């Protein structure tokens, strides 16, 4: 990512440098060459439409090249690979709370393996923050009430700055941290050390504790939709629309169940707004994703697959918890 942004940046430096040089040279040259001299008066020139067209069109074409290039870089930065390792981030005044699918939690630090795509699923508990890693040239605002996503692939082990770049109050400049990029072996040791169990298992527990299971049954169709396999699939709504059951949809259904009700179900689900923390919502979402992950066959060897770099289309974060469900 960094090199893609830098390439465009250098291109911009060259192009704008040339434009600036052109304008400054002409201004300085004209100012010197045509300075006032007695007996020589200015020569009146009306203007020239062809010239105007030329110096409107050429910059415009150059701008379009910059635009297209910038758009391509942006598009890549905004589209996380489907097999990326998923990490949940909760921002609050003034700290970053990070939860890995494997259950590791950290504050103001994010440990990631080198050469693996990492997707951050982020939300805020209070105001707007922004998750910025200058070295990776990525930044994304983190909003309350919804998930936003960014992703990166670190190429060199090391420790990098993490900044909050959306002003968020008194300790805004203290809302900083470190991105620790580790060699895969080191990372495996770190991720498996002393965790409380995978996030999806926590989610399953909450799912049972809150009584979700009584309506959202996994064997038969209960009073609420069966959630097996629902993640990532289109859902028919009562009002006729169809939405994709992504993270934001699941989140909204938990906190505001009436907003996008599934076709054929009664509006009987209470809201859990205020009853569950952001972390618990993340765990629930991770759980629902895990039961949508794959066919039963894939689940069993998923645990073994996790340490390797998963090249399959199944998301590694989903595969991992799958082994825990049994």
């Amino acid at each position: 990512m960094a090199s893609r942004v830098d390439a465009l940046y250098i291109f911009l430096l060259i192009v704008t440098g040339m434009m600036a040089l052109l304008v400054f040279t002409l201004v300085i040259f004209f100012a010197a060459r045509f300075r006032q001299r007695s007996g020589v008066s200015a020569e009146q020139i009306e203007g020239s439409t062809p010239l105007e067209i030329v110096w409107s069109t050429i910059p415009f074409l150059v701008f379009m090249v910059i635009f297209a290039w910038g758009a391509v870089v942006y598009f890549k930065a905004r589209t996380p690979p489907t097999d990326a390792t998923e990490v949940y981030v909760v921002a609050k005044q003034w700290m970053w709370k990070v939860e890995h699918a494997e259950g590791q939690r950290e504050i103001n630090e994010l440990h990631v393996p080198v050469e693996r795509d990492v997707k951050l699923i982020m939300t805020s508990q209070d105001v707007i923050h922004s998750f910025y890693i200058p070295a990776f040239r990525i930044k994304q605002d983190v909003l309350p009430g919804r998930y936003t996503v960014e992703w990166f692939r670190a190429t060199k082990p090391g420790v990098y700055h993490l900044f909050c770049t959306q002003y968020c109050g008194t300790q805004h400049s203290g809302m900083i941290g470190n991105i620790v990029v580790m060699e895969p072996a080191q990372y495996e040791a770190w991720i498996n050390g002393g965790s409380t169990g995978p996030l999806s298992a926590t989610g399953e527990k909450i799912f049972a504790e809150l009584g979700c299971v009584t309506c959202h049954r996994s064997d038969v169709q209960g009073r609420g939709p069966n959630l097996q396999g629902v993640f990532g699939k289109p859902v028919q709504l009562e009002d006729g629309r169809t939405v994709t059951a992504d993270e934001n949809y699941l989140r909204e259904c938990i906190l505001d169940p009436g907003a996008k009700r599934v076709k054929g179900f009664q509006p009987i689900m209470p809201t859990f707004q205020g009853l569950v923390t952001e972390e618990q919502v993340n765990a629930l979402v991770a759980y629902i994703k895990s039961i949508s992950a794959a066919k039963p066959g894939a689940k069993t060897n998923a645990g073994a697959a996790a340490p390797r770099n998963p090249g399959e289309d199944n998301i590694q974060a989903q595969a991992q918890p799958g082994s825990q469900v049994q």
Partner: protein
Amino acid sequence: MSMPTAMPQAPIPQTTERENYLNTKYGVWSWLLTTDHKRIALLYLLSITFFFFIGGFFALLIRLELLTPAGDLVQADTYNKLFTMHGMVMIFFFLIPSIPAVLGNFLVPMMVGAKDLAFPRINLLSWYLYIIGGVMMLHCMLTGGVDTGWTFYAPFSTNFTNTKIVEAGLAIFVAGFSSILTGLNFVVTIHRMRAPGMTWSRLPLFIWAHYATSIIQLLGTPVVAVTIVLVAAERALHLGIFDPKLGGDPLLFQHLFWFYSHPAVYIMILPSMGVVTEIIACFARKRIFGYSFVAFSSIAIAVFGFLVWAHHMFVAGISVYSALVFSLLSYAVAVPSAVKVFNWTATLYKGSIHYDAPMLYAFGFLGLFTMGGLTGLFLSALGVNVHVHDTYFVIAHFHYIMVGGAVMGYLGGMHFWWPKISGRLYPEGWARLAALIVFIGFNLTFFPQFVLGYMGMPRRYYDYSHMPEFQVLNVLSTAGATVLGVGYLLPMAYFLWSMRYGKPASDNPWNAAGLEWKTASPPPTFNFEEEPEVTWEAYNYEELDAPHKEGVPVA
């Protein structure tokens, strides 16, 4: 080109002082109840200068804090209030009124050949609204201030901070009406009060720029007023508008806010472009190259300026596709700005260029505005924006436009028209020195911030002790700010000095084109002894410089 063109002018060397707008009446009430656009312009001049130095003082404290990485000069909350107040004061109480309310107020009626603005009392009302807003802002600052940044982002502003949001919002709300009324007055004056013969294509480009500005003021300012009311409603009444916890949408705030606040940038820069156009024409002794392209580029900027607001939101969580549209449109608005720069440059070609102080400011404007514009191309490039958004790169960029561009133009205009305003000449040597100091100080302050931004230093950080690598550039920047401060104090000193000791100015010391130079310096209350009739094109420098001057003074 007709023969009697230079006729209306009747400059007579004076020994006894003529009656003019300054000496016609004396006393506080003759000023506070005046409906003379020139006197109101001076009232504005005093008030915005006051706010400029308040805002500048805040800037100085900000730069001093950033001299060292640790947050050791002021506390975090104080720092947050400082940059918030710096932004609010400079934008709403200095930059937005600066050129329109001072130079525009003074010159628009004269340039179109009118006795006054269309609604002189509304003009006075606009100043009072500005003062009421300003007093409210001062009161707000003295009793605690605000710490949201001038952008008021919700839900921080609506449900989290416990500073004086509603009061600051109301101050801006009231001052906003002053801006709307000024815009309204200009639009009506330019449409309805032009002197006989002053066709649209003969208008000075200063007028075109103010026309475009006024349209933005009229159409944009109500939106920010509405936004402020919504913030106040959510804050005071807990109506769910922006805060998701109450069922609102925080991005809605950003859309509404930038729908005004992006065009507001053009409220600040367009008048400055108008000033620079007048100065370049005068000191190159030439008609502006491509008059109609420069005129219509102002309108194009005003129109496109309303369609690019979401380029402040590329990382805010808007969809990829809307980001693409707004990036594309941002490049569209860059074209008319580029056209202006090329036309100014071409105007210099085969001119007879004088290096008087106003022209030095215009050169400074050209350099700094070009830099600001070109770095805007970086920010509109989506991929790069993700990296530099909300870093010092953005700070440097918009200061190049709004301080490098707008304030340079404002100072250039103040020098250019000072003889007309005051009837006195300022000391030329000092003025050239000040122009140089401002240019050097400005670049020293803000150029390092581009580098800081690309290195990743976020804006609105009062403490960067974990990133000591940022210090060297911050020290440079602070050093530059002190130089810049000197550069800004100098003109104030010698302008004041000149009011008493300056040499009396002739009616047209620059031998400049334009109706405002065809009346006395300072002008009489109703601007012209008799209604002018315009028979010449704008920027008729060829006639003014012709060796055989028809209609030379009789005396």
